[in-house]
């Protein structure tokens, strides 16, 4: 059991990002340094106070620290998987609570667009290659087809997800894709892996994200209103890892929901906005069911009519998410959560936003609830 006493003790004090897009002239270290400078400016922290470093999808923690001129006493490098954003934040909280670090910086960078990363085929060999099965998109297509068959979910219901997130990206000046589309546009988009179409797939773009965390006590000396971590939940699903997840992550998500709401002491109705990992649009439906925002098998009906849009019942991914803002593998969604609680989101701000939940339904499912201190 995660010790519930960490609820409210640690805060995100600085958030930052690079530009998002295609930057062949910059490497990943460069983009991460841009994000770091942005986050440092955001919180006003003296750089020398930073004594913890976690990096994800960056080639090396050592060179990163050298570039930034920081000397940590706690260092972590995790593999370049989207699930590792939530994992890293939870690990950073544990390190703060154990006293291994007092000010921890978390950095993520991705240069997949300008380097033409394919996310399948020879880049990621696997046992099923001879049958032509590859790519995370195909795994999610396989799960969504099963959901359609078992529950009657339709692709028009699925379209509600990317349509809502694109509307949010239109209101986000930093987003990569800012042209709205309709459910009919979604239905006519190019098929990639049936039943998923182009608009169900996350973007592939370059960019970097930075988060800086410390104790609430130390946070009060910094520039911005502290946003505390009120709850976390963690459950992996690694048995049968070679297969599409048979239950759409329902069981790990229910366990994570019990933990995260229990620690935060809140229920679904208290969540003002949801930041939900949207590598592919079906993941959003699976997350809503597993967390308990709707009944199992009913996420298609739940999202109909703009539920996830600003002004809807549960505004989600207000920055546009991976589908329309930036493929920052969960990291940018955590930044958006902090900005929503701070009230910094301008046109896309959720009115009266006090509590924001992040969730990533993945083989390492994590959820984090952020709240105003």
């Amino acid at each position: 059991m995660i010790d519930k006493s960490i609820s409210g003790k640690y805060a995100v004090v600085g958030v930052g990002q690079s530009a998002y897009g295609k930057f062949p002239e910059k490497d990943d270290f460069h983009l991460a340094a841009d994000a770091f400078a942005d986050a440092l400016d955001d919180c006003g922290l003296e750089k020398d106070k930073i004594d913890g470093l976690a990096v994800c999808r960056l080639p090396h923690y050592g060179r990163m620290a050298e570039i930034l001129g920081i000397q940590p006493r706690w260092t972590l490098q995790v593999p370049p998987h989207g699930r590792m954003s939530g994992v890293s934040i939870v690990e950073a909280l544990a390190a703060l609570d154990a006293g291994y670090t007092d000010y921890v910086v978390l950095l993520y960078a991705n240069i997949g667009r300008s380097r033409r990363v394919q996310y399948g085929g020879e880049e990621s060999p696997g046992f099923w290659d001879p049958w032509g099965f590859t790519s995370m998109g195909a795994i999610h297509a396989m799960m969504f087809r099963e959901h359609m068959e078992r529950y009657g979910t339709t692709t028009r219901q699925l379209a509600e997800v990317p349509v809502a997130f694109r509307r949010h990206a239109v209101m986000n000046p930093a987003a990569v894709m800012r042209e709205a589309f309709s459910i009919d546009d979604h239905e006519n988009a190019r098929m990639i892996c049936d039943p998923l179409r182009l608009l169900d797939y996350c973007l592939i773009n370059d960019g970097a994200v930075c988060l800086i965390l410390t104790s609430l006590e130390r946070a009060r000396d910094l520039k911005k209103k502290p946003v505390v971590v009120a709850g976390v939940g963690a459950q992996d699903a690694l048995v049968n890892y070679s297969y599409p997840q048979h239950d759409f992550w329902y069981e790990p998500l229910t366990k994570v929901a019990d933990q995260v709401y229990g620690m935060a002491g809140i229920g679904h109705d208290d969540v003002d906005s949801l930041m939900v990992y949207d590598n592919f649009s079906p993941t959003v439906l699976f997350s809503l069911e597993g967390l308990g925002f709707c009944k199992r098998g009913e996420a298609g009906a739940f999202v109909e009519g703009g539920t996830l849009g600003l002004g809807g019942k549960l505004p989600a991914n207000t920055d546009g998410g991976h589908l329309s803002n930036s493929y920052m593998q969960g990291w940018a969604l955590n930044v958006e959560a902090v900005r929503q609680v701070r009230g910094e989101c301008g046109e896309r701000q959720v009115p009266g936003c006090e509590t924001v939940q992040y969730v990533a339904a993945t083989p390492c499912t994590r959820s984090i609830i952020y709240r105003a201190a």
Partner: protein
Amino acid sequence: MTPDIQRPLPDRNPISAPFWERADQRVLALPWCKKCDQTHFPPSPRCPYCLHDAFEWRPVSGRATLVSWVVFHRAYWDGVAAELPYNVCQVELEEGPRLISNLVGAAKEAPRHGMALKVTFTDRYPDITLPVFDAA
């Protein structure tokens, strides 16, 4: 044979080779642990239930049910570009483990979740004999 289509070839290592050697002979087989008599897939160096490291490869019935399927419209390998669009399915074998495979025949034409399938083998590709599934 369709010479212009080249499926990616399996990694025939000491752990996986027994599966592919039997497939070459048009036999679908799974590894059963010699200690706890449970089967698992894909083949692993130790039994995921009891960690024993010796297995008996036994042919399976070939009966399965269809869990799900997709149709690729994008080629991640140059060799499959001429085959687009092609399907990939997920089946549950009568013996328990699931397989990722391809649908052929009536199952390919009208797939349905839960439909009964039977294994068959395709010689469509020059370098490999693949177990695939048709309606039972």
